[in-house]
Each structure stands twice: as C-alpha cells, then as structure tokens.
C-alpha cells in the first residue's frame, strides 16, 4: 500500500470504529433511559466541551502526563542500565534475578498502599510508583535484548579486532536498543494504568482523580469523560511513540522492513 492510501485507510477505520462505538452507546442510553446512570453521547460531549473551555480537562490531563513523564525520565535509563548489566554479566543476573522475579509477580497496583505509607499522599509517591513500574518493564526487555545478541555477531566483531568496550558500543547497544524501545512502549501502557490507580486513591488532580470525584458527586458524565480521556491519552501516547520510533529513528524500529 502506498503512503497516502495507508493514511486514508487508517482515517476510515478510525472513523468507523468511533461511529460503531457512538451508535452502540446511544442505542444503549436510549433503551436504558436513565441519564443519571448512563447519559447520552451528546450530553457527555457537551460537558466535555464545557470542561475543555474552562481549561479544567487540560489541567487533569496535564498533571497525569507530567507524572508519567517524570517517572519515565528516571525509570527508563535506570531500567535499561540494570537490564543490560543483567543480560551481559551472569553474576549480576544471578544476584538480582530473585528480586526481579518477585517484583514481576506482584501487580504494581498492590504496592500503592505501600507507597502511600512510606511517602504519604504526595507527588513523590506517584513518581515512585511510575518509576518502579517503568523501570521493571524496561529492565526485562533490555535483559532479553542483550541475550538475543547472536553469538555470531560477537564472534565476528571479535575477529575484526574490536575491544570489549568498542564491542559494547558498536555491537551490543545497537542490538539491544530496539528491545529497550519496545519495553518503553509497554511501560507507557503500564505507567498509565498505575498513574490512574495512584490518582484514584489519593490525589487532587489528574484523570484518575476526575473519575473518583465524579463518583462522589454522582456525576456519571464526568466519570465517562475521565475514562474516555484516559483511553484516548493511552492510545495517543502509544501511537505517537511508535510513529516517532518509525519515522525519526527507523534504524531502531523493531518492525522488520521486508522488501525495502
């Protein structure tokens, strides 16, 4: 498929998806006929517009995104570093593996009470949760990435006379980078999940807070706006990340470009 055709195809499939969703929703709200529990799409659209005009919606989205960015800015390098070390040195792996296994088996959401206990209801406790989730996710994929560097590549580099240090920079890092990026992508999704949970349990802004506040005021339209906003935000972040990887740094894309 050529590029413009692909774009048209995407726009059409997006539009059809939205249309199907809105139609099902309006049918359900008409049949159900209890606006206080299930408002119609137009009602929700109107209150979303007014929230957008008052700037309220952007504040909530902004604070959720800010938390995500801060947590990721620290979590990605830390996770990548530890993951690479674990993949490259068997001793480091043996030492840290039990902890990684344990951390991996406990859902990050279950740790929210912990972070509230240690760091209080603060911005820092939310950063800590995102940091934890994202670094673990990136760590796992970086480790898998280092392990997937083929022996032949390393042997070839050795026979070409590369030293240990050059080998790491020239062979290992380029081979690992795509896996780190795919770890970051998964991390964005998990990070959104955790940030919402943290905001629901204790925060005064953010999309998670918007949902919780809607619940306590019995304002279902605000809850739906929060939920849809979250879904859109997560979709937007995911798509823009893939777009950036594929267009700005196509060399690192995990997508195999067959036929190029």
């Amino acid at each position, binding site marked *: 498929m050529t590029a413009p055709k692909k774009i048209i195809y995407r726009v*059409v*499939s*997006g539009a*059809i*998806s*939205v249309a*199907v*969703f809105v139609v099902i929703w309006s049918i359900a709200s008409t049949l159900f006929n209890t606006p206080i*529990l*299930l408002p119609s799409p137009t009602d929700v659209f109107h209150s979303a517009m007014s929230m957008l005009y008052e700037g309220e919606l952007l504040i909530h989205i902004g604070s959720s995104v800010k938390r995500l960015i801060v947590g990721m800015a620290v979590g990605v390098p830390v996770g990548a570093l530890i993951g690479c070390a674990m993949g490259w040195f*068997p*001793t480091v*792996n*043996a*030492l*840290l*593996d*039990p*902890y990684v296994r*344990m951390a991996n*088996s*406990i*859902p990050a*959401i*279950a*740790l*929210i*009470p*912990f972070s*509230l*206990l*240690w760091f209080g209801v603060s911005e820092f406790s939310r950063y800590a949760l995102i940091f934890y989730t994202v670094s673990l996710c990136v760590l796992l994929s970086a480790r898998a990435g280092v392990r997937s560097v083929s022996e032949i590549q390393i042997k070839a580099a050795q026979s070409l006379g590369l030293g240990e240090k050059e080998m790491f920079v020239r062979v290992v890092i380029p081979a690992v980078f795509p896996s780190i990026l795919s770890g970051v992508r998964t991390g964005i*999704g998990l990070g*959104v*999940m955790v940030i*919402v*949970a943290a905001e*629901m*349990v204790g925060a005064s802004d953010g*999309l*998670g807070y918007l*949902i*919780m506040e*809607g*619940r306590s005021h*019995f304002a*279902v339209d605000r*809850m*739906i706006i*929060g*939920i849809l906003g*979250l*879904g*859109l935000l*997560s*979709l937007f972040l*995911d798509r823009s990340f893939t777009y950036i990887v594929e267009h700005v740094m196509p060399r690192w894309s995990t997508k195999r470009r067959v036929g190029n």
Partner: protein
Amino acid sequence: MPSEHRKSAHYLLGAISVVAGLTIWAIAAWYTDSALLPTPVSVLKSFSEMTQTGDLYQSVFDSASRVIIGYLIGTLAGISTGVILGGSKLISELLSPLFDFFKGLPPIALVPIAIMWFGIGEMSKYVVIAYIVWIVVAVSTLSGLREVPTIRIKIGQIMGLSHFQIYMKIALPTAMPYIFLGMRTAIGFAYVALVSAELIGANTGIGYLIMDYRFSLQTSKMIAAIVLLGVLGSLTQMLFDIIIKRTRLYLK
C-alpha cells in the same frame, strides 16, 4: 556438564543475594518504626497469625472465585468476539482502532462506574475482570487470525474446501497458539483488575485486606498479604502452563 555447573552457581548466587537482602532488610527494620518497615520475622509471624484466623482463607476464597468467574466469562466472550469478527479480514481491520482504544483503558478506571452500574457486590468485580480478559483475549484471537499464512488458505481452496471449512479447519487451528498466549497474558491482567476492584470498593478479598491493614497500620500483615497475592498470581500462571503442556494444546 558446564551448563549444569553454571546453573548451580546461578542458584547459589541467588540464594546468597536473597540472604543478604533479608539481612539488610532486618537491619534497616531494626532502626525504623515498625509501622513503616517491620522485620522479616514479624512478617512471617503475622502470616502464621493470619492463617490461624479464618479471615485469610475467606479472603483467598473470595478473591479466587472472583478471578475464576471473571476470567471464564471474559475468555468465552473474547474467543467468541475474535472468532466472529475474525471471519472477515475487513471487519477485523476496520474495528481494530476500537480494540486498541479499549486495550489501553486501564481496568481500574472502570471500577467506580462498574460499582455504580452493578452495585458494590460481586457483580461489579466480575464485570471489571471479565472486561479486561475479554479485550486481551479478543485482540490476540484477532491478531492470530490475521497472521494465518496465505499459503495455507490457498491450499485449502485448492483442496476444494468451502469458506467456512477453511475457517474452521485451517484458520482457527493456526491461530490457536495466539489464543493461548492471549489467555496466559490475561491471567496477569485479571489479577491487576482484581486488586484494582478490591482496593477501591470491596469488603472482602486480598486487595481489601491490603488496604485494611494499611489503614490500621498493621504493616507486617500488609506485606504478607501483598506477597501472598504475588504467589497466587504466579501459581495460577504455572498451573495454566502445566495444563497447556499436558494437554499439548500448543501443538497443532
């Protein structure tokens, strides 16, 4: 032989590291308030205390039945959605943005509205767990059906099979590994949804216990409950793997 040697060295180092970690934890706990960081021994003690009162069994039973019922409903719905929509490549591709959107929607965001719609009882928990399982399984079923090699379908056509027969006998079996992979991933998501639902609105279950112990500052019990949750999750996934292996469902 050398790989076996390496393996035992791996476990030895791991054990040393765990012992060192526990020691550091114990020393740190010695100098900290026990409400913030209890000692490893007190966590163990709390756990045995919890097993003696019936609370723990009741909570584990409640959480497990939520996960099982929600997971079963979600898997059934997910596979049927995937199979129905996957029959047409056009429909499955046109609707894929919708599924991407729902996949990105954290289940915890739906907990408050599920409680509002279905009440604080068991129903809202089943719905939230079933929802995320449904999406995960449906997406993997759809992508499995999309990945069926054209050559297999062509062969079916040459053999004179009808469209329906090709779908049932060739496409679906080829997509099976994807479906099982989705079902396995869904176990983790089901546990996340379970904890989300129990942290925010429940009167029983392990997630509720964690939150309850936090409020009453019984941190050692809280840690025990969190670890128990992790153990249950891993056990479920191991059980799934064993069943799949035994029944050889991955093989075509």
